[in-house]
């Protein structure tokens, strides 16, 4: 063994340990700093988003449409895949239900900045009567955002938990209403757009035999992009719908789409990959979930400037 190896060996063998209590104290301090900085970043991002929206002078209609469309983006895939004769029975079946709970894993990647990525788990409650509630969680299980689409008040309320802020977009006095396609019945109605889904064959999903259909750049998405007045610039998109052969109900949806720079993406070009599963058609849940739960210490973001 040569000299340098001897010294290196001695260095490696020289022990140093730490005291647990001090480790805990340092970690506690690190966590406080980490959380503080994380909140600051979220706040900055939100402000930046609103600032950008204002600069672009979005009309009341367009603002509502964008947010509306953005929230719905995980659902309208049905439009692309169900218009074939083979899926007609599925569409009929869905009409029987007035509620749905679904879980989605969503990964958003910044196309132009290598490695910038957001990953979230989303749980969505949908009701024919009330609208929908979407809860977004980070990968540590912390709730980040809750989005309420409320049919009775025609409002979209977005609660940003880490920033302790929220904002409300009213659809009253606009050309928009929260249409029925935020619920299962509406999903079926949205199918009127003609598509030619590709059959993917069958495979087993969670122990169930499922048949798959794929729609690439379906007309529904093109219409959605148009509806957003160019503010939701959806690029190439691909949707896969997996239907339980036995129940004839969708059990899994895979989606991948790009969006070029726009307000909904804080003017970043992004790629979105999502997987929706654990669809509980006709699920029972407490209707009180549609009562916006906004803690007293949360501050409103004034959205009136965007609605003029």
């Amino acid at each position, binding site marked *: 063994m040569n000299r340098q190896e001897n*010294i290196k060996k001695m260095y490696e063998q020289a022990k140093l340990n730490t005291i647990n209590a001090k480790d805990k104290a340092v970690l506690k301090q*690190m966590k406080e700093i*980490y959380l503080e900085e*994380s909140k600051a970043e979220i706040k900055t991002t939100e402000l930046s988003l609103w600032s950008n929206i204002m600069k672009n002078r979005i009309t009341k209609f367009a603002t509502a449409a964008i947010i509306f469309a953005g929230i719905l983006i995980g659902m309208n895939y049905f439009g692309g895949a169900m218009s074939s004769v083979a899926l007609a029975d599925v569409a009929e079946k869905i009409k029987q239900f007035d509620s749905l709970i679904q879980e989605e894993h969503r990964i958003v990647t910044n196309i132009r900045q290598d490695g910038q990525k957001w990953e979230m788990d989303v749980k969505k409650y949908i009701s024919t009567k009330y609208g929908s509630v979407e809860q977004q969680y980070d990968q*540590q299980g912390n709730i980040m955002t809750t989005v309420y689409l409320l049919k009775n008040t025609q409002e979209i309320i977005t609660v940003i938990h880490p920033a302790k802020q929220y904002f409300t977009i009213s659809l009253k006095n606009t050309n928009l209403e929260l249409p029925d396609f935020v619920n299962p019945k509406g999903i079926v109605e949205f199918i009127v757009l003609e598509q030619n889904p590709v059959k993917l064959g069958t495979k087993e999903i969670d122990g169930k035999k499922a048949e798959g259909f794929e729609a690439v750049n379906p007309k529904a998405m093109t219409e959605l992009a148009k509806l957003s007045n160019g503010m939701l610039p959806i690029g190439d998109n691909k949707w896969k719908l997996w239907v339980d052969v036995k129940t004839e109900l969708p059990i899994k949806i895979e989606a991948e789409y790009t969006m070029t720079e726009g307000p909904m993406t804080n003017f970043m070009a992004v790629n979105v990959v999502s997987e929706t599963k654990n669809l509980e058609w006709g699920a029972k849940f407490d209707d009180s979930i549609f009562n916006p739960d906004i803690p007293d210490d949360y501050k409103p973001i004034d959205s009136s400037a965007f609605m003029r």
Partner: protein
Amino acid sequence: MVVKIFKINNRKLSFKDVEDTYLSQKNSLLKFAYVLVGNIDNAEDIVQEVFLGFARAAGKKEKLSNIKGYLITAVLNKARNYYRDNKKSSNETLDCADEIPANNKSPEQWAILSEQLQLLSKAMGELPIEQREVVSLYMEGSLTFKQIAQIKEVSTSTVQGRFRYGIEKLQNLLANEVTK
């Protein structure tokens, strides 16, 4: 300065990532800082500051290079600040290195040192700072001379020279220890 030689691994870190990094790197960073500055109290301060800075950067979702490289470089930079604040020229050795610290420290103590590490740190304190940095980077970071040269912004041959002299001196100072 974020050293470019480390492989870029830009991803956002969760606090779990930060915590895991802390648990896996704290001992080696403390050891690295200790042999650099020769005083465990100052080494602890340096490493604590580095970890708090790391948590801040992770919270801000800053792009971090290879995490170990980031941490080692941060310790190195803070050690340099320590030399500067203590008005030590690059040719001076550490005054405090003459004293081997005892392990009966205050309740605030963080690190418990083995006798072998204390001896090694004392010997390292006999080296000029430039040699000490090169030897420490070699031992802790397992870096090549070329990589160390990039960090130090000197030529590879300069690094090799400093390393050779440093190791030679250490070998003499620790003649009895390294053969154990």
